[in-house]
């Protein structure tokens, strides 16, 4: 029998439905006997020395030590004086790549049935650099920043991901016909990196053509790599194709081997604490995490159990079209996982 080394993972339950879906994931992992030990941490923003907002030092230490994290939804309070928590986490760990595999879920019907693609989005610069100025009254300029370093880094990650996950092609999405210099630089870096990965096919496509073709025939796409804004729009578009943010996993890859996997839906304060939440998104993100850690066997087991439960349609949560509780949904998956052994 293969003995796996128990690895510690930082768990950030989050707000709203965060704690209950995190509990659900922990239960399922226990039932699957995954060699994971959870270290729970909180990430409310605190003011550090020098007046700069930062995440609590215990959370940072834990992440730096464990390198892998799983995060639930975090609320962004309006007018709290500090930037969004997600932004803080991104800056703290230099989470440069946002990866969203979008696969059609059998059993959760959408008009699109053959989606199997991955969007890889550059997450640090581009249109979201936050550099804006009011030049004169009534004229605003917002700066889109593209650097060689960040473009090369994201391109390399995309090709590595394609190679490690047996994907056949990588498509760079751009608008270099209009934004010649910025997207041109991004494209050039992608082309350069493609030279080192001859086993993966590289294509380039305009953003508008991708959008047009995506809603007509999403099966033609494999791995998509792009700058920040296009990535934001396309990754949500693809999430919409498979059923929304409630069933879409997401992972953020950072420098120095840090990776934080998260559910990208909101905190749903209206159903928090009522045992009605759907843990699928967080669970699939956790499965993505297992694959990242090389625990493919456990990942497959849990993923299959989850999809089987959804396909059976007997214990679905309200957002999936049923009226079961979160705990019932979780229990069903746990039972299936245990039956597989």
């Amino acid at each position: 029998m293969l003995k796996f080394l128990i690895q510690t993972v930082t768990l950030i339950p989050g707000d709203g439905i965060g704690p209950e879906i995190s509990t659900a994931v922990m239960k399922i992992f226990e039932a699957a006997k995954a060699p994971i030990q959870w270290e729970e941490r909180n990430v409310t923003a605190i003011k550090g020395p020098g007046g700069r907002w930062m995440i609590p030092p215990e959370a940072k230490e834990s992440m730096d030590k464990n390198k892998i994290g799983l995060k639930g939804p975090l609320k962004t309070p309006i007018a709290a004086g500090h930037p969004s928590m997600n932004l803080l986490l991104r800056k703290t760990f230099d989470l440069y790549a946002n990866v969203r595999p979008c696969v059609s879920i059998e059993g959760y019907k959408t008009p699109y049935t053959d989606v199997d693609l991955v969007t890889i989005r550059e997450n640090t610069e581009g249109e979201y650099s936050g550099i804006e100025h009011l030049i004169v009254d009534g004229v605003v300029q917002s700066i889109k920043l593209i650097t060689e370093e960040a473009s090369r880094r994201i391109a390399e990650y995309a090709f590595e991901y394609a190679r490690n996950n047996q994907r056949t092609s990588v498509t760079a999405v751009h608008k270099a016909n209009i934004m010649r210099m910025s997207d041109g630089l991004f494209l050039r870096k992608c082309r350069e990196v493609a030279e080192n990965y001859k086993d993966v096919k590289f294509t380039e496509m305009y953003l508008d053509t991708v959008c047009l073709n995506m809603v007509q025939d999403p099966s033609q796409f494999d791995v998509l790599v792009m700058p920040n804004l296009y990535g934001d729009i396309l990754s949500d578009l693809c999430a919409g194709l498979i059923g929304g943010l409630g069933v879409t996993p997401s992972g953020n890859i950072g420098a120095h081997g840090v990776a934080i996997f998260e559910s990208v839906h909101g905190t749903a304060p209206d159903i928090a604490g009522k045992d009605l939440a759907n843990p699928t998104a967080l669970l699939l993100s956790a499965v993505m995490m297992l694959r990242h850690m090389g625990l493919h066997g456990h990942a497959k087991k849990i993923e299959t159990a989850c999809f089987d439960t959804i396909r059976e349609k007997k214990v679905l949560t309200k957002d999936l079209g049923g009226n079961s509780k979160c705990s019932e949904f979780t229990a069903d998956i746990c039972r299936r996982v245990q039956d597989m052994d």
Partner: protein
Amino acid sequence: MMAALTKALKPILGRHLGNTAKVFGAAVNSQRGKPTYTPPPAKYGGRHTVALIPGDGIGPELLNHVRELFRFSCVPVDFEVVHVNSSSTSEDDINNAIMAIRRNGVALKGNIETNHTMPPNHKSRNNLLRTSLDLFANMMHCQSLPGVQTRHKNIDIIIIRENTEGEYSSLEHESVPGVVESLKIITRNNSLRIADYAFKLAREKGRRRVTAVHKANIMKLADGLFLQCCKEVASGYPDIEFDSMIVDNTTMQLVSKPQQFDVMLMPNLYGNVVSNVCAGLVGGPGLVPGANYGRDYAVFETATRNTGKSIANRNIANPTAMLLASCLMLDHLKLHDYANMIRGAILTTMNETRLHTADIGGQGTTSEVVQSIMRIIQSGGPLTTEI
């Protein structure tokens, strides 16, 4: 009284006495009261002259079909053809085209290819045209067409996109090697202008709701200004509901429930994304016409502005989008009878699945579709030339 007289005479005078009745009528029904007033386009001897820019890819062949159809249906429109060579680095060609449009007031164009490996000083010809002529509003009406199989039904969305500034300002620089900045410009004047256009159009067409699409949670100043301008204009139209949606949520909603949208208003880049998504939802780039309106000029083209290099000159391109764009142009020239006749023929042909072109799942050729449209027009009765 004059208006009533002209109205009574119209069917008799009609086309046979040239367009004197229409001119007379037009002079009486002065456009002063109309909210979307533009000066009348070029007209001489009862015939309009329109600039025609063939462009690249499928543009030339589709525009030839338009000319063929107009000639056949005796539409009183003459075309002044201006070629723009997309591979030449000089801007003479595009300047000639712009001059022709200024002369005539109206144009019908194919997409001009932009080679994005050329240096940054070689700007996109299409963009140059739009900004020089200040065609600030891009309007696209996405409707589910009968006879076309799509995943979503009953879509009827009007998309109004700011066409001159935003991310398409072409203002870029390399601060140090390896660090590039691209400026997105949003101004209060242009935002107010486009919002005003959107609300006026919504009211004119009897639409209930305008949704502004933005990303003001991240781009607080730029999109924040745009959103604020939209809100200001909205307050002057209490009969029209106004709401806003963040662009990523918008795309998600579009692929799951597109029927919830009525009129959508947005800055340039989001407009590009949303219009392509909507075009895809109703059946593809071959079906939707687009229009670019400025204060003084109007240019009509296909909504998604594709060159279609891979299907050029193979007689398989779908002529519907370009033909519907030419109908929009006829409406703009106030030649409504011709516009409705051609549009009716196009929609009747669309119902015949064996005449569908490859992009909507059929095996028909471009010429078959155009022939069918001409046959329907001929059987409709009015004067036509020989097929």
